């Protein structure tokens, strides 16, 4: 018999159920949507088979008081992270259901960040009811504090965008005036008109430079005050000098002014700053997101036996907490009572749930899968392993900040030469050649302007924009501005196993000697469970309807009458510590049947590894999974250097070791347990299916099943480096050629303007070669 899908969540139904729903939760959700007249949601909903189904779960009541902000006008606001938001229709459903409630003032979902901002009239009780309404549909909501997350970065980004807007406005308008002045040189524009144009340009440019130049002036001033120099010092001097000289030209009714150069330079540099800041803000966000996993609070069991919901920070070692099925554990501890399965993938990368029973150790951030547990807390708050991982990640990230860009490395050599050349020009013309000091100063300023690192400043950002555009079309997102430069230096690629070389979900191994009838029985039983192995078994036999009256014993197995399906011990066999994941089926009167599983590897992982080795890269495998599983995967992909059972700290050690040997490491990983290693590696990549935290810690995120993204990005990075070097060589050559001319006073102002813009143009055009549409 064909199995029907549940009308709400789409899960296959057991054949004996009268209703078209898999449970009460789904029935209620369907009713809610139907009542609101929104059943078109089901047509619009695009389900992602890899994502969690929208199955409503019984969740423990939570105290929202910690996160609700009550305002004076009787409204209250709450920010929530939404889990289960797969498509646009989900957001639409939540918004429309909430806004139809009379007490809701506004409900707005941000699709980029998957956050919901909810404002309503009334107190905390109404808020709880609204949260429950959304959760009844199958979404999970986690309250968080927006101020802790990203207020600082957002404020800085907005300031930069305002500067960018002002600079763009000024640049466009001054260019308009400049073009007419340039045309006027040949058509005989009168002096009065030209002066008017220059005065207008000055009126626009000077306030714009004062406003939009602040980020550069501030940074340059801070550097100078600490007796250091950075890229912002020559930029600031160049912009101020160009504006100052143009102003003096304007005052003296001179024919040439350079307000356009100064403002356009600011505009282009600000574009680079904005892109850079957007990428940098992510890591901090990741760490905050990680810590807020547990913000919702924990259910503490008091001495008198009553349960009470408390903030995580209120937990102390020795407390007992209740953790319901499907809930994240809020503190490190030992199981006091209960048997369940724990999803530890967040911390260890282990792909399969681990059974725990009384006495077993559990850690904050792990997900309790099958049955309620009581846990005796041993460490809470900042002492948990989870908090330790966040610290590791932040420390690793700040270590990364020491990387200096090619441009920054050039500056200490470039700027002193420029300043000394300008000073020497001034002294020569004033003292040796006997010119009046104004003429000497004008020549010195033209040296400064002509060396103004316009082409040098654009040489690298232009290439980065072209290369990241090309990668973006291939589904590869560059998040860090320096990643491309660093990728070109990489000589060692380290892979994580689960979710990186493999897709992270198990597959039933084919076995020609298997009894197909036994497989159908097993699949029928397995369909009732959400354990990953059981789901793989059910998926191997798609037509099979779910069996009735199956009971699940958490951590052991499933039973339907006398038929048992589960671990070795569950059917009475001794545990032999088998290398690969397996399930056993025992049916009375028949021989026991073994089902072995393997992790589905990405289709081209072996091919990618072979290419990398052929191209001269060292390749390693670093996994938190068990020894045998890692060894098998390493053999399959042809990786000789591998390490199993590595926890986050061990991965960091391994990376530190590689670095100590002078290797430049690219880390490819996907789990939270990889996050510190991702942050510590020279460059890091994550598949788009990875945990949010890994994605945010990585410099590069790639989409799709294929690992060829690793190949693509390494070859683009090499090409980009070649183009950057050409650009830098050209920019330096241009300066070397033009500066002597400026020093001896040959460079007339229009020539300086033409040289400056043509050099920038050449650099940009050269970079555009990278963005070619042709696939490599």
């Amino acid at each position, binding site marked *: 018999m064909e199995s029907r899908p549940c009308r709400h969540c789409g899960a296959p139904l057991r054949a004996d159920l009268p209703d078209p729903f898999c449970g009460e939760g789904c029935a209620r959700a369907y009713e809610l949507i139907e009542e609101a007249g929104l059943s078109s949601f089901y047509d619009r909903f695009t389900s992602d088979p890899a994502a969690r189904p929208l199955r409503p779960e019984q969740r423990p009541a939570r105290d929202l008081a910690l996160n609700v902000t009550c305002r004076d006008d009787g409204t209250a606001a709450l920010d929530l992270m939404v889990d289960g938001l797969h498509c646009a229709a989900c957001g639409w459903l939540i918004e429309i259901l909430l806004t139809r409630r009379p007490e809701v003032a506004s409900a707005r979902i941000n699709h980029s960040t998957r956050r919901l901002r909810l404002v309503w009239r009334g107190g905390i009780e109404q808020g709880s009811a609204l949260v429950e309404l959304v959760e009844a549909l199958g979404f999970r909501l986690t309250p968080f504090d927006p101020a802790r997350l990203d207020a600082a970065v957002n404020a800085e980004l*907005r300031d930069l965008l305002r500067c960018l807007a002002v600079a763009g406005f000024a640049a466009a308008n001054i260019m308009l005036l400049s073009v007419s002045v340039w045309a006027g040189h040949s058509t005989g524009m009168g002096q009065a008109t030209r002066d008017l144009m220059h005065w207008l340009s000055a009126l626009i440019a000077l306030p714009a430079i004062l406003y939009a130049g602040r980020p550069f002036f501030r940074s340059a001033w801070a550097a100078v005050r600490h007796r250091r120099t950075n890229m912002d010092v020559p930029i600031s001097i160049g912009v101020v000098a160009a504006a100052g000289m143009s102003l003096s030209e304007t005052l003296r009714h001179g024919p040439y002014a350079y307000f356009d150069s100064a403002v356009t330079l600011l505009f282009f540099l600000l574009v680079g700053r904005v892109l850079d800041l957007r990428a940098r803000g992510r890591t901090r966000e990741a760490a905050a997101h990680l810590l807020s996993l547990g913000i919702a609070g924990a259910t503490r069991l008091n001495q008198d036996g009553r349960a009470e919901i408390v903030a995580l920070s209120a937990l102390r070692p020795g407390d007992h907490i209740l953790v319901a099925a499907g809930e994240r554990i809020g503190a490190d501890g030992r199981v006091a009572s209960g048997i369940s399965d724990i999803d530890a993938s967040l911390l260890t990368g282990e792909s399969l749930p681990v059974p725990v029973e009384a006495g077993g150790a559990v850690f904050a951030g792990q997900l309790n899968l099958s049955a309620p547990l009581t846990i005796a807390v041993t460490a809470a708050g900042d002492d948990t392993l989870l908090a330790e991982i966040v610290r590791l990640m932040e420390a690793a990230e700040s270590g990364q900040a020491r990387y200096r860009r090619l441009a920054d490395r050039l500056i200490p050599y470039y700027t002193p030469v420029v300043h000394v050349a300008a000073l020497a020009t001034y002294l020569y013309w004033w003292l040796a050649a006997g010119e009046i000091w104004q003429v000497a100063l004008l020549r010195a300023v033209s040296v400064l302007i002509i060396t103004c690192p316009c082409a040098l400043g654009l040489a690298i950002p232009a290439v980065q924009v072209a290369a990241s555009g090309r990668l973006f079309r291939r589904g590869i997102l560059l998040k860090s501005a320096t990643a491309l430069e660093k990728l070109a230096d990489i000589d060692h690629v380290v892979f994580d196993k689960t979710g990186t070389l493999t897709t992270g979900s198990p597959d039933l191994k084919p076995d020609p000697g298997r009894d197909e009838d036994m497989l159908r029985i097993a699949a029928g039983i397995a369909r009732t469970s959400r354990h990953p192995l059981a789901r793989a078994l059910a998926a191997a036999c798609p037509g099979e309807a779910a069996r009735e009256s199956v009971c699940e014993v958490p951590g052991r197995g499933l039973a339907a009458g006398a038929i048992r399906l589960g671990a070795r011990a569950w059917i009475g066999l001794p545990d032999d510590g088998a290398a690969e994941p397996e399930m056993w089926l025992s049916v009375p009167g028949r021989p026991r049947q073994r089902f072995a599983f393997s992790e589905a590897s990405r289709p081209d992982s072996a091919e990618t590894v072979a290419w990398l080795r052929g191209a001269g890269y060292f390749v390693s495998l670093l996994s938190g999974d068990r020894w045998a599983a890692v060894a098998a995967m390493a053999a399959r992909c042809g990786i000789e250097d591998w390490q199993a059972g590595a926890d986050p700290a061990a991965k960091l050690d391994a990376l530190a070791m590689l670095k100590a040997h002078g290797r430049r490491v690219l880390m490819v990983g996907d789990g939270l347990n990889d996050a510190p290693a991702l942050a510590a590696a020279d460059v890091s990549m994550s598949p788009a299916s990875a945990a949010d935290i890994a994605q945010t810690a990585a410099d590069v995120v790639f989409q799709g099943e294929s690992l060829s993204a690793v190949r693509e990005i390494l070859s683009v990075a090499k090409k980009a480096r070649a183009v950057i070097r050409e650009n830098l060589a050209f920019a330096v050559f241009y300066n070397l050629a033009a500066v002597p001319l400026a020093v001896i006073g040959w460079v007339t102002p229009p020539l300086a303007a033409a040289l400056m813009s043509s050099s920038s143009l050449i650099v940009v055009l050269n970079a555009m070669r990278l963005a070619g549409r042709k696939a490599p």
Partner: protein
Amino acid sequence: MTSLLLLIPCALLLGGAGLAAFLWALRSGQFDDLDGAASRILFDDPPQKEKHHV
């Protein structure tokens, strides 16, 4: 050349209007959710309380 006296202020006013519009958009959070706007137009608006007096 007198036409300049009219045209240049016109150009500046138009540019200034564009700048003001951008700054307003930035302040009012138009750039906060770039993904949502693309899909939002596919669906009916949630009812607007202020207009319908629910």
